[in-house]
C-alpha cells in the first residue's frame, strides 16, 4: 500500500529534455514542482570526466547510459499474428536512463520539421489525391508552423544550436537549407567547421545541382552562454559522441543546459531512482490526482498533485497511459481507441564508399558534425507516379570511428584472421558513408499495447511493439538510396555498397532511437490522445509530452521537435491553463 505524501502543485515524470524544460518553465511561474526520474542523477562534472568519458567498452558495447533491460524493456513482433518476445539487450534503439535521459547520448542533430509536416495528411491528400496509399494512416498534428516556430526558436537558444539558416522570414539564405520553414532568426551559433568527408560530399552534391548545408548541430561551435545562464564549450570533435555523454560541455542536453539552473530553484525538487508506477485518477476519470512511485528501497509512495506532466521516453509515456487506464487502448482490428495508435519509427538507409586514395581521419568527428541536402526529403520532390510518399535527410556526419566497433570492411571480407586485419588497415581511414535518415509513416497495424505475457520485475506488463516497415516506406527507401548512390558514384569510389531498408523490421541491429507515436496529438479526440497543447483529451490536468505525440515521423531527427513541444505545452499551461484550469480546447 502506497504511503500518501503531502500534495504539490506539479509532478513531472521523467527528467530528460521534455521534463526538464517544462519543469523549469513552470518553476518560473512560482509553482512547486517535483520531478521524478527512474534513473540516477547525472551531471557532467561527476559522470563525464574527460579522462574516462571516451570508454567504448563501457558506453558503446555495455550501453552504460541506457536503461537496464532487466528493469524495463519492450516486447517485439512484426505483425498481429505473432507472439511478441522481450528484447533482452538493446538493439534497434537505445532508451536512456537518469537525468538528461536519451538526450545525454544523442547525436545532436537538430532539425525543425517542415511546415507541411504539421498538416501532412491534408497536404498529401491535396497534392496527390487518390494516389495516396490506403495502407497509410497519416494525420495532421492539430497545430501549424506559425504556432511551432517560436518554440523551435526558444529551443535553439536554450541548446545553442549551431547552423546556417536557409530561410529567415521567407528570404532564402545562401548556404542554408532552402527547404526549411521560415525562421524568425538566424541560429544562435555559427555552423561547426567541417571535416574532410562532409566537405567532399558537399562538393559532389553541389556539382550535381543540389544545395548542401551544414547539419544543424547541438554540439556547439563556440563558447556559448544559453538563455538560462548555463555555459557550454566548443565541440572538440573527440569522436566519442553518439552513445556517450559529453565531457566538454559541448553537446546540449538537459544536464548541460537546463538542470544546473533548475536544480538551484527552491521550488523544484528532483526525485531520482524513483520509478513512477501509474498516474492516479479520481472516481470521475476526468481528473488526475497525482502519481504513485517506488523509491530505490522498494517503498511505494503516492504523490498527489494539481497538475501531472508525463514526459518520459515514448515507450514509458504510452505504457504509463495504458497502465493507468487513460484513453481507450487502440485496437487495430476495429480501428478504434487512441492509446497506442500511429506508432512509427525511422527508415535508415546508407551508401558506403571505399576509396584507395583518401584519408578521412575518421576518428575526428561528432554526432552532428556534417553536411546534408534535403532534395529527397519528405515532400520536397514531386512524388506523382512514384507509388510512395515521404523521403529522407541525406547527409554525411562522421561520428568518430572508435577502435572496437569501427571496422568498415567491403562485403565478403573474412570476419577474423589475417585477411580481416589487412582489410581493416586498408579501409579504416579511407572509407566514408552517406546516410539517408528517412520518414516512417503510420499504418493501421503498427501500434503499441500492453504485452499479455511478459512483465517487469514489479509485475507490470511490458509494452508490446507491433511493427513492420510499410510497403510505402520500402519503396521510398529504394528510391532515395538510388538517389544517394548517384551522388556517391560521382565521387569515384573504388567500391560502393548501398543499403536500403528492405524486408521486415529486424530488432537486433541498431537503426535509430527515433521512435514516435502511440499517444498522438491532433484536432479530434476520436483519433488523437492530446490536443495541440499536449493536454490529454478529457483529463485537463494531465499533459503527455514527447515524441509519443508525433502522428508519424518525417525524415528528420525528432529531438528539436520534442523540445519545441515541451516549450509549447509549458507556454499553454503558463499563459492559459493556470488562468482558467480546464479543457483548453473543447470539441
Amino acid at each position: 500500500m502506497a504511503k500518501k505524501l503531502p500534495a504539490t502543485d506539479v509532478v513531472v515524470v521523467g527528467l530528460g529534455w521534455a521534463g526538464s524544460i517544462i519543469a523549469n518553465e513552470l518553476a518560473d511561474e512560482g509553482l512547486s514542482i517535483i520531478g521524478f526520474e527512474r534513473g540516477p542523477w547525472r551531471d557532467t562534472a561527476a559522470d563525464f570526466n574527460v579522462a574516462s568519458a571516451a570508454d567504448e567498452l563501457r558506453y558503446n558495447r555495455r550501453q552504460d547510459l541506457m536503461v537496464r533491460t532487466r528493469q524495463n524493456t519492450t516486447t517485439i513482433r512484426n505483425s498481429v499474428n505473432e507472439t511478441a518476445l522481450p528484447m533482452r539487450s538493446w538493439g534497434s534503439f537505445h532508451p536512456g536512463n537518469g537525468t538528461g535521459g536519451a538526450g545525454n547520448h544523442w547525436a545532436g542533430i537538430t532539425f525543425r520539421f517542415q511546415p507541411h509536416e504539421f498538416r501532412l495528411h491534408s497536404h498529401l491528400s491535396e497534392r496527390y489525391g487518390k494516389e495516396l496509399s490506403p495502407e497509410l494512416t497519416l494525420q495532421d498534428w492539430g497545430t501549424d508552423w506559425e504556432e511551432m516556430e517560436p518554440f523551435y526558436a526558444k529551443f535553439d537558444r536554450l541548446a545553442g544550436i549551431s547552423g546556417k539558416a536557409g530561410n529567415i522570414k521567407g528570404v532564402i539564405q545562401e548556404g542554408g537549407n532552402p527547404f526549411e520553414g521560415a525562421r524568425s532568426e538566424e541560429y544562435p551559433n555559427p555552423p561547426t567547421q567541417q571535416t574532410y568527408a562532409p566537405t567532399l560530399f558537399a562538393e559532389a552534391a553541389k556539382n550535381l545541382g543540389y544545395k548542401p548545408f551544414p547539419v544543424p548541430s547541438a554540439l556547439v561551435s563556440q563558447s556559448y552562454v544559453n538563455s538560462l545562464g548555463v555555459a557550454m564549450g566548443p565541440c572538440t570533435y573527440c569522436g566519442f559522441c553518439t552513445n556517450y555523454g559529453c565531457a566538454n560541455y559541448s553537446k546540449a542536453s538537459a544536464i548541460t543546459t537546463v538542470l544546473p539552473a533548475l536544480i538551484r530553484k527552491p521550488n523544484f525538487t528532483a526525485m531520482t531512482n524513483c520509478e513512477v508506477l501509474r498516474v492516479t485518477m479520481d472516481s470521475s476519470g476526468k481528473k488526475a490526482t497525482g502519481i504513485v512511485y517506488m523509491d530505490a528501497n522498494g517503498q511505494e509512495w503516492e504523490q498527489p498533485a494539481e497538475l501531472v506532466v508525463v514526459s518520459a521516453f515514448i515507450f514509458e509515456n504510452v505504457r504509463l497511459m495504458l497502465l493507468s487506464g487513460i484513453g481507450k487502448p487502440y485496437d487495430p482490428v476495429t480501428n478504434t481507441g487512441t492509446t497506442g495508435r500511429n506508432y512509427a519509427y525511422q527508415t535508415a538507409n546508407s551508401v558506403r564508399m571505399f576509396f584507395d586514395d583518401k584519408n578521412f581521419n575518421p576518428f575526428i568527428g561528432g554526432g552532428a558534425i556534417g553536411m546534408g541536402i534535403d532534395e529527397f526529403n519528405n515532400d520536397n520532390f514531386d512524388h506523382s507516379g512514384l507509388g510512395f510518399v515521404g523521403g529522407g535527410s541525406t547527409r554525411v556526419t562522421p561520428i568518430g570511428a572508435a577502435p572496437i566497433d569501427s571496422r568498415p570492411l567491403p562485403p565478403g571480407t573474412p570476419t577474423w584472421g589475417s585477411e580481416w586485419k589487412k582489410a581493416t588497415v586498408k579501409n579504416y581511414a579511407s572509407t566514408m558513408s552517406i546516410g539517408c535518415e528517412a520518414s516512417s509513416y503510420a499504418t493501421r497495424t503498427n501500434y503499441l499495447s500492453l504485452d499479455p505475457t511478459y512483465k517487469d520485475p514489479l509485475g507490470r506488463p511490458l509494452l508490446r511493439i507491433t511493427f513492420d516497415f510499410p510497403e510505402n516506406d520500402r519503396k521510398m527507401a529504394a528510391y532515395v538510396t538510388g538517389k544517394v548512390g548517384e551522388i556517391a558514384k560521382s565521387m569515384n569510389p573504388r567500391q560502393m555498397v548501398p543499403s536500403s531498408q528492405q524486408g521486415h523490421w529486424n530488432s537486433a541491429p541498431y537503426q535509430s532511437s527515433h521512435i514516435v507515436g502511440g499517444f498522438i496529438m491532433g484536432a479530434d479526440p476520436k483519433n488523437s490522445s492530446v490536443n495541440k497543447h499536449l493536454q490529454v483529451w478529457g483529463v485537463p490536468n494531465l499533459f503527455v509530452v514527447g515524441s509519443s505525440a508525433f502522428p508519424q515521423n518525417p525524415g528528420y531527427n525528432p529531438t528539436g521537435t520534442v523540445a519545441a513541444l515541451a516549450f509549447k505545452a509549458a507556454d499553454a499551461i503558463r499563459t492559459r491553463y493556470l488562468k482558467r484550469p480546464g479543457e483548453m480546447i473543447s470539441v
Partner: protein
Amino acid sequence: MKTLLTVCAGVIGLSLNMAHAATGADSYNLVEKGRYLTTLGDCTACHTMPGKPLFSGGVILDTPFGKLAGANITPDPVNGIGRWSFEDFQNAMSKGHGLDGKRLYGAMPFTAYTKVTREDNQAIWAYLRTVDASDNHVETNQLPFPFNVRTSLIGWNLINFKEGEFKANPQKSEQWNRGAYLVEGLGHCGTCHTPKNLIGGDKNEQFLTGANLQNWVAPNITSTGHDGIGAWSEADIVKYLKTGANRFDIASGPMAEEVEHSSQHWTDQDLMAVAAYLKDGAKPVEAAKPVAATDPAMVAGKAIYADRCSACHTPNGEGVANLFPKLAMAPLVNSNDPSSLIRVVLAGSRAGSTDAAPTAPAMPAFGWNLSDENVADVLTYVRNTWGNAAPAVSSASVKDVREALTPK
C-alpha cells in the same frame, strides 16, 4: 564643563537611537543592513556548517598550529552569544576580545574587522539577534598545548594587531575608500590572500600578494606583480566576484565557496568599489625569465599537455570563457607557489555555482593516471609557456601534495 557636554551629547545620541529603533521600518532596515553586512563578511564560512542551523558554528579551521572551530553566534544564552551586549560584540570585532575580555584567536579575522565602523557593527548585531537560537555546543579551541593557552595571544596581538576603525584616505575617491573599507575590513580578503609570518600573522607589507592555505594558493590579487591581476579590467573583477567566472578564470576551492556564500550577493556598487581599489596603482611589470622550451621537463610537459589538457584549455592555453580557465598569463599559474595547480591536477576541482553562472564546471582528477613526474612536467610547461614564467615544479613537490591529499 567638557565632561558635561560629552554626557549631554551621549544622552541625545542615545535618545535618537531609541527613537530610530522605535519605528518598525527603521528597525527592519537596520536588520536588513546587518543581514547584508554578514553576507559581505561571509560569516557563514566559519559559523555555519552546511545543512546545520544558521550561525550555529562548528566549521573546523585547520591552521598550521592545530584546529579551531567557528563559534556558535546565535542568541542561545548557553552555547551562543545570547548573554552578550552590543559592547561585547563591538569588542570582539574591534579588539578581538570575547566575553569577559577572553582573547580570540586570529582565525577570527578581528585584525581586519577592527576596521569595521561601530555603526556597521550595530547593524550586524541587530541582525544576529534575530536569527534562531541554536543550542549546538562548539569547542572552539581545539589547539594543542601550548597554543591553546590564550595568554599567548597577548604577545601575538602586540606583533600582529593594530586596533582601529578604517580611516578614509582624503586623497582618494569615495569609491576607492569604500573598496578599501570592504577589502581591508569586513571582506577580510587578506585573511587568505596576504602571506603569513611564522606565528600566523599577516605580513602587512605584502598585503594581498598571495598565500597558501591548506594546499590551496590564494593568489596575488594586487595589480602590480607578474603573478597579479594586472591584466584584469575592473569589469573582469566584478564579473568574477559576481558570478565566479570571467574570461580569465573560474573560482574553485575556497574561493568558489566565497563566491557562492558571499560575493555573488554583494551589490554591484560595492563590487565596483572593490575593483577600483584593487586596480589602483596598477603598473606593468617585467616578466621573469621562463624555463627554456628545450628543457627536458618542458618537452615532456608539452606532450602531456597536448594529450591530456588541450581539449579543454585549448592548445594555446587560452581556455574557454566561463568553463575552462585561461592558463596564459593567469595569476595562479605564475604564482611562485604551485600548490593549487598540483592539487587540482591530482584531485580535480569543481567551480562554484551561482545564480548568474549556474554551470559549476569541473576539472577532473588526473592523480590516478599521471605520475608525480608527469604532473611536475606538465605544470612546468604550463607555467613557462604563452608568456607565463614561474619556477619549475619538482616531482618532490607533487609527491608532498599527493601525500597531504591522501586520507590518513
